[in-house]
């Protein structure tokens, strides 16, 4: 418990986070990419073709993780928002700023891969099914946060985006239920934590690897992004000045 | 914006904040009012305060009486219509209580905005440019209000370009950083 408290305290200093994270971040990104490549290779080449969809389902190894990550990223933004508003931790502000574009990119990727999946499977480039629709709405939510952040002055932008992110987080389950309820076309979730997966292990294991690797990749990229934000925000402090000088020389 | 500012306002004090445009008079008042928390340090109040900002706080589509009635309700002051009318008379708006504020002159609007200082429900007054758009009589009115407030034990901090000409006012000059 004491260890956690110290960690919490340390997180209050963006500078500390920057110095620590530099070591982890690149490693995470590389590990993530390797995992994704591995999972993809496994899924694309080795796993057997689906009896209904043939080979096109393989895009699922990109589509499903992207969709899952885009949602997790928003939840993280909401959590960071709560931390910012309650404990006024500056780092949380930077997490929100860094996470928003990453989450939006995951949404875009999920939509793109969804289109690529849809074309051979259902014959159209766009399909209004539960997952694509929720991801689309999620993308709009991300746009809102990004646009709000750009429009407001730096002093207040962080807290305003935090409020918006929290309202979004509350709304996301509502959105998902209503969209689910609105449509029945999409496949049921590929795996749930408690229920048995409806796919044979040769199919869902590479998916699991893929999802976990995506998480690692996301964590790495996020930390790098937060580091960037820290440098931007603290550009007028001494330690950043020293850092830039030492890197330049 | 400010460096090492230490301000103590006691009963009976009238502080005049002066300084060139952009020196932060409005910002300081907003910090004192608690509208801005963008500073290191603390503001401690010994009771309620009344803030009349730069823009007055009047809705132009309503009449002075309606505006005053709303102010009274949200500030937690009991006041009957006749009391409110009397307050508007006292600031020189006799006969204009029921005219929509957008039809009043700028000076009259300022008087209507200041009328709520007569609620006497706050020990500290924070006034941002109270003399804006006021003629001689209007300035005298503000001076009178502040004097009476001070005599009753109140205090005021006013940001102003021209001197309020209140006896024994404490000047506080904000300068622009070099």
């Amino acid at each position, binding site marked *: 418990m004491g260890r956690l408290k110290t960690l919490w305290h340390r997180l209050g200093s963006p500078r500390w986070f920057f110095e620590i994270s530099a070591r982890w971040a690149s490693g995470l990104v590389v590990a993530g990419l390797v995992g994704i490549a591995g999972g993809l290779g496994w899924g694309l080449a080795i796993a057997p073709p689906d009896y209904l969809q043939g080979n096109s389902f393989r895009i699922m190894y990109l589509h499903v993780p992207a969709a899952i990550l885009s949602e997790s990223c928003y939840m993280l933004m909401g959590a960071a928002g709560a931390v910012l508003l309650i404990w006024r931790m500056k780092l949380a502000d930077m997490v929100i700023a860094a996470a928003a574009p990453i989450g939006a990119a995951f949404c875009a990727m999920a939509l793109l891969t969804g289109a690529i999946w849809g074309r051979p499977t259902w014959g159209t480039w766009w399909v209004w099914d539960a997952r694509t629709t929720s991801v689309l709405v999620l993308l709009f939510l991300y746009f809102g946060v990004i646009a709000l952040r750009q429009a407001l002055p730096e002093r207040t932008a962080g807290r305003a985006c935090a409020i918006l992110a929290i309202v979004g987080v509350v709304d996301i389950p509502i959105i998902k239920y209503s969209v689910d309820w609105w449509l029945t076309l999409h496949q049921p979730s590929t795996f749930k934590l408690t229920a048995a997966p409806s796919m044979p292990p040769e199919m869902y294991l590479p998916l699991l690897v893929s999802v976990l690797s995506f998480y690692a990749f996301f964590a790495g990229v996020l930390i790098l992004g937060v580091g960037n934000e820290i440098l931007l925000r603290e550009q007028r402090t001494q330690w950043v000045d020293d850092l830039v000088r030492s890197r330049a020389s | 914006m400010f460096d090492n500012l230490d301000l103590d306002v006691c009963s009976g004090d009238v502080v005049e904040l002066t300084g060139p445009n952009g020196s932060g008079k409005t910002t300081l008042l907003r910090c004192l009012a608690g509208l801005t928390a963008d500073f290191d340090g603390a503001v401690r109040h010994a009771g309620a305060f009344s803030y009349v900002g730069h823009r007055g706080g009047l809705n132009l589509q309503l009449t002075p009486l309606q505006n005053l009635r709303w102010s009274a*309700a949200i500030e937690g002051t009991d006041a009957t219509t006749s009391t409110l009318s009397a307050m508007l008379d006292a600031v020189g708006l006799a006969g204009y209580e029921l005219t929509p504020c957008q039809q009043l002159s700028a000076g009259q609007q300022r008087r209507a905005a200041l009328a709520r200082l007569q609620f006497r*429900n706050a020990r500290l007054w924070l006034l941002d440019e109270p003399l804006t758009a006021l003629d001689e009589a209007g300035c005298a009115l503000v001076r009178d209000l502040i004097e009476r407030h001070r005599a009753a034990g109140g205090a005021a901090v006013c940001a102003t370009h021209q001197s309020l000409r209140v006896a024994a006012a404490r000047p506080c000059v904000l300068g622009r950083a070099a």
Partner: protein
Amino acid sequence: MSAVAFDRQPSSGRAFVAQLQRDLLIAFRSRADFVNPLMFYVMGIALFPLGVGPGPDRLALIAPGVLWALALLSTLLSLDALFRRDFDDGTLEQMALNVDPLFVGVLAKVGAHWLVTGLPLALLSPVAALMLFLPGGAVGTLVLSLLIGTPILSLLGAVGAALTVSLKRGGLLLTLIVLPLYVPILILGAGAVTAAIDGLDPSAQLTWLAAILALMLTFTPFAAALALKVGLE
């Protein structure tokens, strides 16, 4: 005139009533704020027969969605002015300084906004439904769904309006922020009307809407008040 020296007895109930009365008064003084969203609604609905063709079958098919989507857009139009006018003339500062807790004042403003925008819209909707040949049996559900749904639109919209209050031209950004949040309301509202057309029971959707309204009532005024304080800095 001299009351007890420097005494204040602020009461949330009184502040709520005073704020509500004031906002209703202002709304009725400026007819435009009241009439414009309604006119937009009717005109917007009329665009569809003009664009899609006057055939009753096609129009009746799209009617639930169009009637609801346009209600959303009309509400969005009227949201910008919710806090901005008060921000510009200094009254918002007064409310923020004196009404404590601030969400009481926000709730009063949202209530006034709904009474002036959402409620008339719901009551006007049968006329619009006529233009799109909505089957008579579904009109009751339409009005009911709008009566439950439009307050949610006002509440969520208030958060967006509060977040953008300090921006000079925040109207479009407001729309961008609020529209995704509106999606479930649209789905449920239009879904209820569609169910009614098909002869099914719309009470599931209507109950969901009511539950969402209850949820939003408890937390959006608070979020909006926080956003206003941030905007006033």
